[in-house]
């Protein structure tokens, strides 16, 4: 994906490595970009590097090489110091709703922290109740503690806190995978709606392609640290070009009641999934 000057976020040739007993290259030369008001989905199996990429975008992960820039400026690494105020317009929603909220602080006060971040950047103020309403929770919840809420409610509060900071770019790392099936689609849809209402870009990371199809303008498919396919979501969904994308899509069981087993790959991780296929990139 070619980076253009009006991109909100552009990631260029990003490489992330973890040094343990051996060096693991989690992200291996990934480039992508997000424009304002765009929802980009990042999909792939667990361990494909999508979470590492998300963490690098907000500055939680130090790239081995390559760059992450937001509005043309390099995103600073989240060190021990206070994050520069300008970059609080990048917010993140985490996967596990249980650890997303401080257990000792009331919900309202946590959303207020988001509002403060917006004020510190000179953005308009707001009230925690407004945000609760926007994420579909009763306003009376301001005085609750996290342990009094269900997982789905916690995740909505975490989304409210992130949005209260009035971000330009919202990064969501598997925000719905810990939720009940019946609320997954609605929360994902709500995130899209709220992000776009605010004119923000949304980087939505998920392994659930059915949801991604519902909310993403563009989709990036990652496999073992590399992008194997990318482009307009509908296009990828209807006519997957890369063998891995094809396997991924055909493995999704359709809830149609017909009792058809999804196609299983002949082998675990066949070599062709790793093949580079230029025609599968930047599909329109």
């Amino acid at each position, binding site marked *: 994906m070619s980076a253009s000057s009006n991109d909100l976020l552009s990631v260029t040739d990003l490489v992330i490595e973890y040094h343990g007993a051996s060096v693991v290259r989690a992200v291996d030369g990934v480039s992508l970009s997000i424009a304002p008001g765009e929802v980009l989905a990042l999909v792939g199996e667990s361990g494909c590097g999508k979470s590492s990429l998300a963490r690098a975008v*907000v500055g*939680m992960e130090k790239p081995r090489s390559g760059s992450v820039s937001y509005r043309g400026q390099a995103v600073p690494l*989240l060190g*021990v*110091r*206070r*994050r*520069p*105020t300008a970059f*609080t317009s*990048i*917010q*993140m929603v*985490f996967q*596990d709703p249980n*650890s*997303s*909220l*401080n*257990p*000792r*602080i*009331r919900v309202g006060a*946590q959303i207020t*922290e*988001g509002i*403060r*971040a917006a004020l*510190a950047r000179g953005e308009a103020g707001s009230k925690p109740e407004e945000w609760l309403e926007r994420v579909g929770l009763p306003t009376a919840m301001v005085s609750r503690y996290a*342990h009094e809420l269900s997982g789905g409610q916690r995740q909505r509060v*975490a989304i409210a*806190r*992130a949005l209260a*900071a009035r971000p330009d770019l919202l990064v969501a790392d598997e925000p719905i995978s810990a939720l009940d099936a019946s609320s997954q689609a609605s929360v994902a849809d709500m995130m899209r709606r709220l992000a776009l209402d605010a004119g923000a870009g949304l980087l939505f990371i998920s392994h659930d392609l059915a949801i991604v199809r519902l909310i993403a303008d563009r989709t990036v498919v990652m496999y073992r640290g590399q992008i194997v396919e990318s482009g307009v979501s509908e296009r990828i969904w209807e006519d997957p070009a890369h063998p891995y994308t094809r396997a991924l899509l055909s493995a999704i069981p359709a809830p149609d009641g017909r009792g058809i087993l999804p196609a299983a790959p002949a082998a675990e991780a066949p070599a062709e999934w790793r093949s580079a296929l230029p025609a599968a990139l930047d599909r329109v």
Partner: protein
Amino acid sequence: MTRRWLRIPSAWVTPLGVIGAVIAAFWIVVAFTAQFWVPFDPLAQVLPRLQAPGIDTIMGTDALGRDIFSRLMTGAGVTIPLALMLVVMSMVVGTLIGAIAGYFGKWVDEVLMRLTDLVMAFPTVILAMVVAAALGPSLFNAVIAAFVVSWPQYARMTRSIVLGLRTQNYVMAGRLLGFSPFKTLRVDVAPNVVGPILVLASLDVGTAILLLSGLSFLGLGAQPPTAEWGSMISAAMANFDSWWIGVFPGLAILTVVMAFNFVGDSLRDIFDPTSQMSKARAR
């Protein structure tokens, strides 16, 4: 907020915890009021020597004709406040150092943790002897010697909790909202450290009393004629057949140390995230 999660539902408190709290409270009250109501001046050598417990002197008198009961009660006021002071000092300094090491990590952590390792390697009694030799033996110097070796346990515990919290999503979320390091420590870290540290501290009060009495027993702490439990037991060694001189201070140390340990144990049950009670609270 703090009051809310510190509340202790009645069904959870173990009987031993209640007994411990009552005894500990009794001794603390005694420590601060004994000087006003004891029957005799603890230092006055006015009574018959080595008198067995009786009606006038319920715990008998020592070899210098001083009332043991009066000395015992005022002795509480010597050891317990100093032990509490020692624990509070160790807690504050240790927690601060541990929080800094855990939060800032890298070389800061490395330097501070090696320092705690170094300090922990000192044998307490030998260190107290060194301090006594350098500054002269006194109970306050014994407290300084004990302090030097007792803060590292707080530092280590705080550091490990902070290290675990550092990667919690809500801590990261706060940092992404632009929290300063101080605000992160105050808002997201400190409330989670308070519980375990209080448990450690309450268990440590008993240890501190034993340590200070022990140093006084060895002559490295309180000096004669101060009425201090350790030195009272030490004095009893010279009059072995007058059992009351040593037994009552010994019982005093025993009850106060056990009381604080019971309190600490039940606090631990309350704060332990794996215990039934905390689960009920988290729900």
